[in-house]
């Protein structure tokens, strides 16, 4: 980065020049002031000295002549005197040429000018009287001009030798001296200034610029060395500079290496921070959220900026908040360094995110908390899987238990059945051998009846154990069940309506019709018993196709085509506990004597024996629905019974569907199913959450798929509220109960869109497609 241009008034040269100029001006002024007078005096004295010298020169000439005369002893010789006088006069005139601006006069007897070096030498002396004047300086006028003169008296010839200078000429050196002083001072000053500037530029500025340039190079990362050959202070400075450069170079290399390491470490950290599978948040007690990685943002559905507007507790499930705060407080207090827990957060879309939270803090030297690092591992899937596994395990356990029970029961029943056969047979034989009026006959009859009843029980057990001897036949359920309606109707009594809803073109199944009887009888009896006074029992058939996805979540389900036989009631329904033990032999909720507890176990066994499965939907006070799925028999059917060819599974175009289901397993299954069908899915496990979600959702929600029977409010009410928000929104109801049951109970208006559980993916895809209004 180039150094910015420095204004001249900020430069060192300017700062040097200004005081130098000021000092120079002051000095020059002082010189002129103080020297001019002495200089003038000096020049005056100098001139006077020259005047004196000139006059003395003239005097010497005279004295030489006098000495000559004395030597010749001719001092009294007039002629000789005259000759020497003339000679002296000439010499004197000539002598004046040695002295610029100075003229010589010879005045005899103080009055007559014998000779002079002026061009127009006056004849007479007009100056001040010369009487008694010797070796003195006088001011006089010569030819009307003021002059300064020096007088020497040569008494032998009575001559005054006067050296004089006109004042104009006399002052001209003084003026010149002044001028010289001024110019000299200025010149010296200027020379000093120029020298200073030159020296500065040569010996200071250039090295400084080189130094500046080299320093700038350093700022740009180029380490250039300076020439150290100059033996002055700059040379030393350059040496020191070079040492510094070498040191900087080394440090830069070290720093670069460190930076490289740091970058690598940073990159590694960042890759771990940003791209790791763990959500990481860095917060502080004072500033709250400092950083959150992308994983965390995606995990919770917020942007980093949105997170900064939230508090930890805002997003924490209320059931986990207390434990989290307690641990957090302990950590801040220093009791612990970190803590971890499984904690639920609320996603932005209000869904729950299960996380494994690990919180640690980084402390200042004074042990105060500097910042807090929270790492969150999304275990929602694991939790769901665990939940599903738990359900599956339960189901498996239940199935295994049932299997075990069945096997045990079957084993016992089988042996017991045999014994009963003996007892019944023998009793029957005894009856034949005994008169009816014989008191033993009644006993035998009782024994026979008991044996027969026991045989029923054992038969049920065997059926449960799937060991019942069966003769499966390919039958049309509609036909078979239709034949049993009257009997069943009588079985359930007058207070209860029996509705028969056969499906069209029902696939054939292969089952022993007697087993079908058992199923229907047991289910209807249970349904009757569940209805306190008046009620309704609905028997219906249908056809279902279950895909692997559905079956993966339901251990009992097997992929394939199935014929549905459903028996539903509007009785008291069953609670969870009852449902969990529903098919266990001898499990009953009826009072003692009102059931053996084997009816549903028998149904279970028969269904299993025929490779089918059974689902039960029940809500306390809402009724129950037993849905039996028997594999479609495809080997051959009566011509009248032919299933329709399966239609291609319709897919979405990204429409947004809101799924509301209080059963999380079904909710997850639906989410997975519908996402795979290219829909955007919003989920809510409670109606209130569905409303919140619908209100906060920014884009259009095309359809709501909602369970009918739910806590807080039913699906109908929910649909009403949602329709108020989004008049255009489509509604699809789903339930384990049959549509007839739902509609009859006034739960739904007739004609609304409904899909019954369980449903296959194909069923759901087609239904959604239908409801959205896109016909296949």
């Amino acid at each position: 980065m180039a150094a910015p241009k420095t204004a001249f008034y900020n430069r060192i040269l300017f700062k040097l020049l200004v005081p130098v100029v000021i000092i120079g001006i002051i000095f020059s002024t002082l010189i002129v002031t103080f020297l001019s007078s002495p200089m003038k005096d000096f020049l005056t004295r100098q001139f006077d000295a020259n005047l004196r010298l000139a006059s003395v020169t003239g005097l010497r000439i005279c004295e030489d002549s006098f000495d000559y005369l004395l030597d010749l002893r001719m001092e009294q010789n007039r002629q000789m005197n005259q000759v020497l006088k003339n000679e002296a006069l000439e010499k004197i005139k000539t002598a004046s040429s040695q002295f610029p601006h100075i003229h010589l006069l010879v005045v005899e007897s103080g009055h007559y000018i014998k000779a002079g070096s002026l061009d127009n030498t006056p004849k007479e002396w007009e100056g001040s009287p010369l009487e008694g004047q010797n070796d003195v300086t006088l001011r006089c006028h010569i030819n009307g001009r003021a002059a300064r003169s020096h007088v020497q008296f040569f008494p032998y010839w009575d001559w005054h030798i006067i050296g004089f200078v006109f004042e104009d000429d006399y002052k001209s050196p003084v003026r010149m001296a002044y001028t010289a002083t001024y110019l000299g001072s200025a010149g010296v000053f200027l020379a000093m200034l120029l020298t200073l500037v030159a020296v500065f530029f040569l010996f200071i500025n250039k090295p400084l610029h080189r130094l500046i340039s080299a320093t700038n190079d350093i700022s740009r990362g180029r380490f250039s060395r300076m020439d150290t050959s100059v033996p002055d202070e700059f040379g030393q400075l350059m040496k020191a500079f070079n040492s510094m450069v070498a040191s900087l170079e080394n440090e830069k290399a070290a720093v670069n290496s460190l930076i490289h390491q740091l970058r690598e470490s940073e990159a590694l950290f960042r890759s771990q921070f940003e791209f790791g599978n763990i959500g990481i948040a860095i917060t502080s007690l004072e500033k709250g959220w400092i950083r959150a990685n992308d994983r965390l943002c995606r995990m919770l559905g917020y942007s980093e900026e949105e997170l900064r507007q939230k508090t930890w507790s805002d997003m924490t499930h209320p059931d986990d908040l207390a434990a989290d705060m307690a641990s957090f407080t302990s950590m801040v207090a220093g009791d612990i360094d970190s803590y971890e827990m499984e904690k639920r957060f609320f996603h932005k879309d209000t869904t729950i995110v299960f996380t494994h939270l690990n919180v640690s803090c980084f402390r200042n030297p004074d042990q105060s908390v500097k910042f807090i690092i929270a790492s969150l591992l999304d275990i929602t899937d694991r939790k769901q899987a665990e939940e599903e596994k738990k359900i599956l395990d339960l189901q498996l356990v239940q199935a295994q238990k049932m299997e075990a029970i069945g096997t045990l029961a079957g084993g016992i029943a089988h042996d017991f059945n045999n014994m009963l056969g003996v007892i019944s047979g023998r009793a029957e034989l005894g009856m034949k051998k005994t008169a009816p009026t014989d008191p033993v006959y009644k006993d035998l009859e009782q024994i026979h009846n008991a044996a027969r009843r026991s045989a029923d029980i054992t038969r049920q057990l065997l059926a449960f154990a799937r060991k019942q001897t069966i003769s499966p036949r390919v039958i049309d359920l509609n036909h078979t069940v239709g034949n049993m309606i009257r009997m069943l109707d009588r079985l359930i009594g007058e207070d209860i309506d029996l509705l028969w809803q056969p499906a069209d073109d029902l696939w054939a199944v292969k089952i022993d019709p007697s087993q079908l009887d058992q199923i229907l009888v047991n289910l209807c009896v249970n349904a009757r018993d569940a209805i306190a006074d008046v009620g309704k029992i609905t028997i219906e058939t249908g056809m279902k196709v279950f895909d692997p996805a559905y079956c993966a979540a339901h251990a009992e389900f097997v992929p394939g085509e199935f014929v549905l036989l459903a028996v539903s009631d509007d009785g008291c329904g069953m609670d969870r506990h009852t449902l969990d033990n529903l098919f266990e032999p001898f499990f009953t909720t009826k009072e003692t004597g009102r059931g053996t507890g084997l009816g549903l176990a028998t149904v279970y066994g028969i269904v299993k024996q025929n490779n089918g499965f059974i689902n039960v939907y029940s809500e306390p006070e809402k009724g129950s629905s037993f849905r039996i799925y028997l594999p479609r028999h495809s080997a051959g059917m009566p011509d009248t019974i032919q299933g329709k060819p399966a239609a291609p599974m319709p897919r979405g175009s990204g429409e947004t569907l809101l799924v509301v289901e209080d059963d999380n397993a079904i909710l997850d299954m639906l989410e997975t199913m519908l996402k795979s069908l290219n829909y955007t899915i919003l989920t809510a496990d409670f109606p209130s959450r569905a409303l919140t979600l619908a209100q906060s959702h920014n884009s259009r929600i095309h359809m709501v798929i909602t369970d009918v029977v739910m806590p807080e409010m039913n699906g109908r009410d929910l649909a009403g509220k949602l329709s108020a928000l989004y008049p255009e929104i489509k509604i699809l109801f789903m339930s384990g109960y049959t549509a007839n049951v739902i509609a009859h109970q006034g739960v739904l208006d007739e004609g609304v869109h409904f899909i019954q559980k369980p449903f296959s993916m194909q069923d759901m895809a087609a239904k959604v497609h239908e409801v959205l209004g896109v016909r296949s």
Partner: protein
Amino acid sequence: MRLHAKWIISCACFLFLTGNVCLADVTAAPIRIGATVSLEGKFQEPSGMIQKAFTFWADEVNQKGGILGRRVKLILYDDKSRPDLARTLYKKLIEQDRVDLVFSPYSTPLTLAASEISEQHEMVMMACAAAARKPWQRDFRYLFGLYAPGNRQFIGLLDIMARENHKTLSVLYDETSSFNLDIVNGIHQWADTFNITIMYEQGFQDGKKTLPHLVAAVKAKNTAGLILSAYPPDCHELLRLLEKEQYRPPVLAMPIAPVHPDFHKKAGDMADLVFSTSQWEPDERIPFPGTQQFVENFTKFAGHLPSFHAVSAYAACRLYEQAIVQTGSLDNKRLRDYIFSLDTVTLLGRFKVDHTGMQIGHNPFIIQWQKGKKQIVWPRKLQTAAPVL
């Protein structure tokens, strides 16, 4: 052996060819030179210088082997500063002592007297201490002067006074000596030339008695200058009287006494600024050959600097020596002729005599005592200091 003989023969031939000396003359009688000196009386002081100069020269010459191979022997008598005694003694020297040469005594009076005798006997006399013109107004043919005449002694002083516009003068003089009379004549002559008025002039014979009155008179005149032309005793007396009278004219001059190197010691503070006339001073600016050597050697010999009296006497001796050597004889006629023809330079300066034998080769200069030191103040070309008035 052979070498030694050759050397002797060479020397002998040399000596013979020069014609100055023969082997027989080495052992010849010395050249006898007679003179009187004033060991007492008013001429004692300057005469003492002369005597030392004579002696100095004789030693110098004898150390060099004499003149013409003959040693010099001085025969000196005390004339007691009396002309009559000087006359008698020179007669003795010449007639009885049969000296080969005579030197002059000190002073014009004594020289006048002595030269009468030497002239009678046609013996050359170098008057090394007579400055008056009178000795050379007698048509003597064997008398030569070294001093510039007395009438020229104070030209410089009057020139100085005229330049400084000191226009009045008092003159006192010892009228017993023609030297002083000459001085006064010269003063008159040059005072006219320089427009200086002699306001008071008085001669005296007994300075001790007369000077007190004369000083009073001079004081009354209050002239710019006072010249006393007298011999050292009167000069010192005058100074004493002036000090007593607490009177000192701006210009005070006297001959002879102030030129002695010890004048300041004797006269004290009164010596300061006294002018005098001198024929020579021991100054490096005196350009005459041998001056420095003489000053050094004489000072070593005598223990003090020489005055011009000593230089004059020495110069006279050197002239004698030169004349003898050049003529190769002691014949006074030949010596006389030689000396007349001389136009040479001595320590005193140019030596040239006119037809009367009077020195015309050089002029005196003016000295002044300044701060205990004798300075040449005139002529300007020889100045060692400017005159202080």
